[in-house]
């Protein structure tokens, strides 16, 4: 067979295939309302990309075209999602994106689709082996002991302990917290969380002292043994009213807020793809399951696509109900 006739056969085959499928009525009568691609944002951590692949996989099964553009976490709320460059983004954490979400809500061009399910927890965290050196932990008052603080110190912070906080762009208020609770700790800001966990990994291998900001759902609390410090529980008054809490003269004398993780969409999604919108709005995932799946990707080396396919197969009844 000559090359040319092979090509023509192939393209003919493709054409007949296309024609045939146009003629046969689609299995899903409602979806897709539009064949334009639904764009689900990928950010730079595992769980959000897994969620994106799960939702995308469901939508593809319903007949939609899905694309996965890469985007920047905080700025996407006021750029891509406001003008439809991104259709859906699945994880905005109350704990780090509070102000950005407020700014996004104020534009009126995005829609908060509800909570994803898992609760975000962020707090000061230490490896288990540090408990020997500071036996009062996890109670935060143990940290006031100068000996305990010194156990967490490095040469440039001594005699203060060293606390490695998140990037300044995260809304952590750790400098204020250390001052309000009179903790003898110096707050050092890592520029990115990659740098933060690199320090944790290095310290953990050497069984060296470290106190840092760890959040969940994340692979770190699964991989390293340790605990969160127990501060007085967060309430909104604590962040707004100096009188509240152990220090009557300062705000932030409590722990970090534990919050929801929110799904966001471009405001136009509702009218353009009503069924996909319903699925995205109803989409939730179980905390333990998400942690387990993230671990399979980060620690066991599976691809997000395979793990997502597994979830979709296991929960077929769920997502079929969401589309109704």
């Amino acid at each position, binding site marked *: 067979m000559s090359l040319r006739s*092979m090509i023509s056969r192939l393209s003919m085959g*493709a054409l007949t295939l*296309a024609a045939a*499928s146009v003629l046969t009525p689609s299995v899903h009568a409602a979806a897709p309302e539009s064949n334009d691609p639904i764009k689900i944002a990928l950010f730079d951590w595992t769980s959000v990309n897994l969620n994106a692949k799960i939702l995308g996989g469901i939508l593809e099964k319903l*007949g939609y075209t899905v694309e996965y553009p*890469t985007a*920047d976490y905080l700025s996407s709320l006021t750029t891509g999602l406001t003008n439809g460059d991104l259709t859906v983004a699945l994880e905005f954490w109350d704990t780090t994106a509070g102000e950005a979400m407020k700014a996004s809500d104020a534009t009126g061009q995005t829609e908060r689709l509800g909570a994803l399910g898992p609760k975000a927890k962020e707090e000061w965290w230490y490896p288990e082996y540090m408990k020997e050196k500071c036996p009062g932990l996890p109670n935060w008052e143990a940290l006031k002991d100068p000996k305990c603080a010194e156990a967490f110190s490095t*040469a440039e912070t001594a005699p203060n302990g060293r606390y490695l906080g998140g*990037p300044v762009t995260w809304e952590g208020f750790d400098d204020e917290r250390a001052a309000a609770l009179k903790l003898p700790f110096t707050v050092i800001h890592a*520029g990115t969380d990659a740098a933060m966990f690199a320090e944790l990994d290095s310290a953990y291998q050497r069984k060296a002292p470290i106190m840092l900001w760890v959040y969940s759902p994340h692979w770190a609390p699964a991989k390293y043994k340790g605990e969160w410090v127990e501060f007085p529980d967060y309430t909104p008054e604590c962040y707004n009213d100096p009188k509240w809490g152990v220090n009557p003269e300062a705000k932030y004398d409590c722990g970090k807020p534990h919050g929801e993780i929110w799904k966001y969409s471009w405001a136009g999604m509702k009218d353009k793809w009503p069924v996909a919108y319903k699925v995205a709005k109803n989409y939730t995932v179980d905390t333990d399951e998400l942690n387990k799946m993230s671990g399979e990707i980060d620690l066991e080396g599976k691809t997000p696509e395979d793990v997502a396919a597994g979830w979709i197969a296991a929960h077929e009844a769920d997502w079929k109900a969401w589309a109704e």
Partner: protein
Amino acid sequence: MTVTASTSEARSRPVQIWLVVWACAFAAVLAVFLLQDRLPWAVNYPAGAIVSVADWVSALMNLIKSNFSWLTRSITAALGVPLDFALNLLAKSFKIGRGADMVVLPRLSWVGVCIAAFLAGRAAGGWKLGALVGGCFLYIALFGQWTSAMLTLGLIAIAVPFCIVTGLFVGIWAWRKPWAERLLISPALDLMQTIPTFAYLIPMLLLFGNSPVSAMIATAIFATPPMVRATMLGLSRVPSEINDFSEMAGCTARQKLWRVLLPSGRPALMVGVNQVIMLALNMVIIASMIGAGGLGYDVLLALRALKIGEAMEAGLAIVALAIALDRLSQAIARSHAQGHVYQEVSPSFWRRYPNLTLAIAVLAVTTLLGLFVPAFAAVPKAITFTTAPMWKTAVSWITINFFDTIEAFRVALILNVLNPVRAFCEGFPWLGAVFLLGLAGYQLGGLRLAVLVAALTIFCAVTGLWEKTMATVYLCGISAFIACLIGIPIGLMASRSDRVEKVVTPVIDTLQVLPSFCFIIPVVMLFRVGDVTAMIATVAFAVVPAIRYTNYGLRQVPPALIEAAKVSGCTKRQTFLRVQLPLALPEIMLGVNQTILMALAMIIICAMVGTRDLGQEVFIALSKADSGRGIVAGLAIAFIGIIADRLFNAWTAKARARLE
């Protein structure tokens, strides 16, 4: 004898005057510093007088966004057509129709692309180059980076020609109209090269959307300037005889330009092309943050999960891509530079372009085979391998065994060197800096330079960024100083021995193209977050031009002069100190200048490990999607670069004038 004595006297007199002037100036600044209780406004810029340039820029951006999005979005759509084609062809495969009726035409087979790369290399530079280029592509495939690498290659394949054509036309325009060059092009080029890309990421996202096209435009802004400069240089260097000859032969202006001048300037143009490719590959990480995906995204994602080995592999795949494209473009430049031999034009395509035909045939056959044999369509997992565990083990081993030594070194460095310098810089009176820099500008380049330098310094103060600006100066200054301290001696050794040069060249090529993200995280594991890590990463990146230019400068000293020195009885040491070094000084100074600019380019990356300077300011602006704040901080970074560059150039020009 008397003649030389009197000239040296005449020369030394103004030097002495300047010495006195400088002494007085330093005394005045010291006085301001000591009197800071009385004159606080001269040391720290008063908060009340800060001009809100950032708000103006944001307002302007909003105006553009609401009135001109139709224009910017049509640009996105227009540029998206070729870009999507390239991305589909190389990486994603074509999807015709949508939803359930989709028909997929496959992307090019990886086997075919590797063979085509080999053929291209062989055609341009023989078997050896063919093996190198083909080998680089095979390396990418075997390390399991194929799809990402092809996404990156697709972006580069469209962005680079776009940059080259734009750069060529702008360069020609600037060459024809000197006023445009002076007033418009030259300042624009400086800003394009010195404002960090992160600073205008938000406007890009708003205007051009979260798409590969934005990434391409950001790449173009950063990578086009060398092409413009190379075009201007190439055209102005064409010997006047050739110019005259073309006029005698009766060429029209257009014929003269396209048939005579541009072909004669080809070597310079090809240097521009080469730089465009390198800078475009430098941008892949940032491009991945605004929708491009590809290798840059793999690096980011791997580092977020602390997979150092995987990040290193993706980074090395970028290096492989860079080496392949660089060597290929250099070989093409060389073979063209040798000139054409007139050949009878053969009527058949096959005879005229045997390699091209063969490559197309191979691509077509392997891609079709891919429809039936999956191993041709995607790289089979079984034949890929990974060195990731090895990297990880190596880093862990160093961490466990050497951390304590490193920690002692780090603490000593921070407490004894970095912190005092930082305190000195941050406490420096802004008025004093304006005054001293202006004075330096006046001494080196006259009143115009003085005004420019002073104005740019004032900008950093009145926008309220003085302290962060000085923190930037501190980190860049120290890093550039150390980079020169390391780089110049290495360049020196490389210039004296071909063997050393052969070892050094691939190392510095790798340092330049490997994304700094790849090595900044392992460095954090050893040196913790903070200024020392930032400094090490900056030195590793900025040392490259110091080595390269020193080597180049010393090697281009005419051998006849060295012979002459030997004949007149100079010792080796004398030859070096009195002949080679002074002659190579302008190049070495250019290298130092480039080192400073490179150090400045790293400021943004350093913010990722927790520095507190303008880089951090740009990051905060990025996360708050505040275009004004980002651009103002970006401008401040650019202005530091421009001030350093102008002062250095003026100084080098003076040194060169003294030589001649």
